[in-house]
């Protein structure tokens, strides 16, 4: 109950903030940070709970963005419908990737997900309708009623999506699904032998992960007013999602949020003050440092002072 009240307060705060006269740039930056919250939370469902490393974040993110673009060009569909369609496509792709876990584990699964990114990217490069390699300029629709600008509205949409993603991740973690996935992570054979429906759980985790990541990608074309394959299917989303989860801590739903808020804000600050390349470098260095020195992430470091202990 406390969780839902907190989430309700956060949602109300996001809407209140979007209606207040705060500087426009704040929303521009906060939108990206919130995107990383969704991506990291989604990544952690498979990566943190089940122990399958997914490098394919950009594939899901990108399929969501392109699904939105197709719907927009074809039907002039509203944003809500675009997000729903993106989630559906991402879920389907996630299910397909989940089928791969039938035979592949560890690095083999991880490399297969890299392959999915490049195949998706090549498909989009060769698809004229969505702009091919050069990309497509998009025109934003009119601003909806209470919001002063489109970016503010997108900020609220992404905030609500982040809350939904966290609620889903929390539900999965605390239910039998999460217990099953953790059993898969610790020993897949033992889990299977004890009657855990491992394949069904993995498929579920992959589908939910894919749907959430794709949903996070859907508003991106509108945010940029532009779509183009190279930046949409960029591996920096992989590092962002993976890095946030590892830096925050993979064992609890709070970890990816902490990691994403920290990493995302840091990236925004560095991009503005130093340069875009340095910000990617910082993420890489932090990822390696945490993986080596603090394998349990920030949550592990501050475990003693946290109310929950596992």
């Amino acid at each position, binding site marked *: 109950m406390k969780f839902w009240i907190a989430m309700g307060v956060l949602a109300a705060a996001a809407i209140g903030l979007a209606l207040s006269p705060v500087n426009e740039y704040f929303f521009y930056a906060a939108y990206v940070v919130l995107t990383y919250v969704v991506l990291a939370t989604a990544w952690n469902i498979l990566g943190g709970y089940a122990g399958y490393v997914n490098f394919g974040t950009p594939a899901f993110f990108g399929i969501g963005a392109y699904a939105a673009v197709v719907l927009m060009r074809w039907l002039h569909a509203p944003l809500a419908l675009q997000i729903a369609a993106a989630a559906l496509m991402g879920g389907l792709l996630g299910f397909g990737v989940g089928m791969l876990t039938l035979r592949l584990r560890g690095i083999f699964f991880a490399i297969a997900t890299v392959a999915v990114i490049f195949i998706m990217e090549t498909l989009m490069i060769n698809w004229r309708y969505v702009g091919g390699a050069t990309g497509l300029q998009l025109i934003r629709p009119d601003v909806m009623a209470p919001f002063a600008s489109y970016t503010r509205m997108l900020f609220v949409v992404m905030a609500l999506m982040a809350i939904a993603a966290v609620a889903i991740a929390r539900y999965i973690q605390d239910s039998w699904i999460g217990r099953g996935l953790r059993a898969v992570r610790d020993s897949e054979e033992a889990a299977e032998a004890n009657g855990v429906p491992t394949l069904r759980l993995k498929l579920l985790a992959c589908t939910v992960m894919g749907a959430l990541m794709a949903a996070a990608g859907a508003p991106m074309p509108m945010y940029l007013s532009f779509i183009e394959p190279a930046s949409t299917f960029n591996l920096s989303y992989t590092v962002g999602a993976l890095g946030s989860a590892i830096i925050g801590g993979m064992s609890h739903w709070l970890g990816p949020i902490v990691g994403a808020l920290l990493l995302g804000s840091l990236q925004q600050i560095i991009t503005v003050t130093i340069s875009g390349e340095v910000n990617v470098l910082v993420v*890489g260095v932090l990822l390696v440092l945490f993986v080596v020195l603090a394998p349990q992430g920030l949550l592990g470091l501050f475990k003693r002072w946290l109310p929950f202990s596992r």
Partner: protein
Amino acid sequence: MIFSFDLLFEAILFGILLGCFYAAVSIGLSVSFGLLDVPHVAHPAIMVFGSYCTYIVASHGLDPILSGVVLMPAFFVLGVLIYRFYYETFERRGADAAVRGLAFFFGLAFIIEVGLILGFGVDQRTVQAPYIGSSLALGDYRIPYRMLVAFGVALVLTFALTLYLSKTFTGRAIKAVAQDEPALRLMGANPVRIKQWAFGIATGVSALAGAMLIIIGPVEPALDRVYIGRTFCVVVLAGLGSMTGTLAAGLILGIAESIVLMLFGASWAPAVAFGLLLIVLGIRPQGLFGR
């Protein structure tokens, strides 16, 4: 789509040259990942790093191939250090190491790539040599000399490494560590030292592979991304750790890529390696010559 047997023959010829090159750039990974089970996703990034080192050395007037050879000892040491670090931090701790080791190498690849961008910018770099830019006319076909040079070096490299692994004492020890590490330990050998040596060799070979990479064409920092697909495709298709398999798999990938290039154009070529990789992983994860 234009199709003729003439074009097909040319594509296959080009594919064979390209295929040997792919085998050569993958052979380091075939040792580090195929034999030692290290999730070395940073292999292509180290190779591209090798290309940039070659670029620096060659800019002082040295031949690029020779530059690659000169760099090999330094890369050997780098490899030993990387393995040592990986072993101390991840492999020895067991259990959870797989996820974190993978994340470590992925982060390492990213650091190398961004480091190169910061050092050299995103522009493409090339080297100069007498055999770059001209081509051999064989009847109606024109084969660029740079492809032939890379082809030759690739063959020498592959055969040298194959012989080393099957004929020398240390080479056999490396194969033994891949087959049964506890047994090797019981026989009084130190598997960690052997693995360290093998990883050093794999990384040293990457310097030469990097030199070939910059001879074949211009190099940019982000080039490692597409080579993740090519090198892993070759190694997995070959069957982990099989050296002859690596050559065969390289040829299959090279010919497939060059035929797709001819039929559908350059924009589809990068997907060939990744598509082939997915198919192999889905249907026959143990590869053609799997152990």
